[in-house]
């Protein structure tokens, strides 16, 4: 990946973690000595490369995987904050990316009952839970929000 893209990508991720939310293009631009339009242009390239996901209607960040920029059913407490994961995989991925333990809260999509567990030393403390993936790997990026 081009060094210019990597610089903006890494800064965007760093700011996401520092802020506890997705940064705006203007915020990244201010930290990168670029214009907001330049950052949005790089973000669109990163989106095409599956390095982050934009909201097509606004060009704002929708996903900096594993982090979600919008509320989801997967809440993660880690590194002193609450985050949203894009899915169950990403919820555990937030602990992995932050290299820390955490707590994950969601609900069973079938019965609606709350699910909450801790991740300690990379191990979930409720090993009876099951992860289900509906979409085959070959099609994950066909519609990543649905996946």
């Amino acid at each position: 990946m081009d060094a210019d893209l990597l610089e903006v990508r890494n800064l965007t991720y760093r700011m996401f973690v520092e802020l506890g939310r997705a940064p705006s293009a203007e915020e990244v631009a201010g930290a990168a000595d670029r214009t907001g339009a330049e950052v949005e242009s790089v973000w669109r390239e990163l989106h095409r490369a599956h390095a982050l996901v934009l909201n097509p209607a606004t060009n704002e960040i929708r996903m900096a995987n594993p982090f979600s920029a919008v509320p989801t059913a997967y809440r993660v407490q880690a590194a002193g904050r609450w985050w949203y994961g894009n899915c169950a995989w990403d919820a555990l991925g937030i602990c992995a990316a932050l290299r820390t333990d955490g707590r994950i809260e969601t609900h069973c999509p079938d019965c609606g009952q709350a699910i909450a567990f801790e991740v300690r030393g990379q191990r979930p403390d409720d090993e009876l839970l099951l992860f289900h993936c509906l979409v085959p790997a070959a099609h994950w990026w066909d519609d990543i929000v649905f996946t």
Partner: protein
Amino acid sequence: MNLFRSEEHVERWVGRRDPGATITVAKLSELAHAWWSDRLAPDWQPAPRERNQAILDELGLTGDFWRLP
């Protein structure tokens, strides 16, 4: 990509859709740590398809369902 209380809950939720794949949350945690742990590293580079496929293969996630494009 959801978490369920048991296989019974998975089957009821899937219903008439294609069955997908089910793994334990412990396996998912292994997958998540292998897949995402470098995501905030300053020297991060996008993983080539072969590396991602190797992560799946090494965790026993094989077969057509887990075959990346």
